[in-house]
């Protein structure tokens, strides 16, 4: 298996963090070499081609418009360390629809947990919230 420079750096950083004060150039080198060896011992099949470029999700919400809907959702996103990359909102009579593109790359939670937390808000506010990975939309609607 080949490692990119980035990956090697990450392994080295992990080693340094773990060693703490004991870290010396020799020790780090040894640990990195061992880590590389270990991942080489796994059987290497040719990897499938799918690549995940980003970790972004699309959040859709709709329901009866009432104050605080956006605040509730964005607050949770903020607490979860997700960043909001785009947002579009429409009000149609008493109803609202919101679509947000959310960057999950540094999120505290996995998709599933985040979904569950959003579901709690949905139940509490009596609205609908869906969170789905962007790849799905990209695959279905972009050639």
């Amino acid at each position, binding site marked *: 298996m080949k490692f990119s420079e980035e990956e090697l750096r990450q392994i080295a950083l992990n080693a340094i963090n773990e060693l703490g004060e004991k870290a010396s150039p020799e020790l780090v080198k040894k640990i990195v070499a061992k880590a590389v060896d270990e991942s080489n011992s*796994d*059987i*290497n*099949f*040719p*990897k*499938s*081609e*799918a690549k*995940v470029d980003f970790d972004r999700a*699309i959040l*859709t919400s709709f329901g009866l418009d009432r104050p605080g809907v956006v605040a509730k959702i964005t607050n949770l996103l903020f607490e979860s360390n997700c960043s909001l990359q*785009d947002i*579009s909102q*429409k009000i149609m009579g008493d109803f609202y*629809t919101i*679509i947000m*593109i959310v960057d999950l790359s540094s999120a505290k939670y*996995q*998709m*599933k947990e985040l*979904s569950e937390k959003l579901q709690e808000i949905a139940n509490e506010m009596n609205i609908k919230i*869906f*969170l*789905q*990975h962007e*790849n*799905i*939309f990209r*695959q*279905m*609607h972009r050639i």
Partner: protein
Amino acid sequence: MNYEFDEILSTIKMTEIEHFDIRTVTLGISLLDCYDRNLDVAKQKVYDKIYKYGKNHVKYAKEVEDRYGISIANKRISITPISIPFAGLNRYEFIEMAKVLDKVAEDIGIDYLAGFSGLVQKGFTNGDRELIEAIPIALSQTKRICSSINIGTTKSGINMDAVNKVADLVKKTAELTKEQDSIGCAKFVVFMNAVEDNPFVAGAFHGVSEPEVVLNVGISGPGVVLDAIKSAGNVDLQTLSDVIKKTIFKITRAGELIGREVAEKHGIPFGIVDVSLAPTPAKGDSIADILKAMGVEDVGAPGTTAALAMLNDAVKKAGMMASNSVGGLSGAFIPVSEDQGMIAAVQKGNLSLEKLEAMTAVCSVGLDMVAVPGDTPASTIAGIIADEAAIGLINDKTTAVRIIPACGKKVGDVVDYGGLLGLAPIMEVRTISSQGFVGRGGKIPAPTRSLTN
């Protein structure tokens, strides 16, 4: 914003309302290196190998489900047709092997493992003969094992001796599992032109030319197609074909994404997407309902075969455009017991076995989950298999028969398995005899179509 509002809504509608799911992610595992002179060693090798590759299968699939919010209905495993690596076993040893496979399937946490199979289109090895004797007992003594026998190909013709043997096998399996409505027969498929990368159980197996281990995915989505056709309204057939293609295109793309991600988690190659419309007993997940939405009053009405042919063709065209890795069976399935609309059509007397046979000529995968009276003679079952195989032979396509001669049941009764296998009304079979023809044995020679070189 990169995406239109309508696009986002259409995807949410598919996954949240229209039951779009991935029908199966099937891990194919080669057992070609598992033979050993010592049966106990061979059994251990088989267990270890399947366990090693399969132990995380359910977990990985669940992780991908969570990530995309699209459910994967079945997580399954297919293996090399067992009579190939283990041609040296006798029938009792094959039964022991089936129990090992059943155990490993249970330990991994999957519901079905398929590939307790043999390929006898041109003749039997000793292993094939022993396997065929072992299958009824193996199916009656295990829960998770599925079996299949390929009795012909367009290149080699139909092995009628095998057809007769398999008809006996089906009868025997029905008898041995009569306490449970002959459920053994629901786990056994007779194939013509079997494909090597089919991810759909019960007919799945991991062909000999496949890699060491591979992940295939079977997509589904009759509910999505049904809704698209309904909302298209009264349009002409070309426009309707277009509507179906657009829908299938989207679900194939999503299916491939899911399959590739599961393969990536396993660290193994991705194989194929099988773009089949496969129904489930759930309401709205029905091929029959699609045919009715296309305009026939009920399945079995004149025009049904044409509607199904068009549906099947649109599915293929869209699948081919959407993915470079289309394989498996890739067509619409019309199992009777697993489709509410089909069950209703049989119960109302609108759909006969003969009409169903005609329909199988234009779609995958044949007479599937068809229950017939328990006193149907083996020669008649052989005749039914031979007819179905002939359709595959001449049209150079896969056909199959999964027939249940339900012990002690008559026309008007039902067999009810619950779950994914559903409920099968007993269909009427003509009582005129096929014995004189099928009893001749030998082979139906390969047709002129086989000489393509």
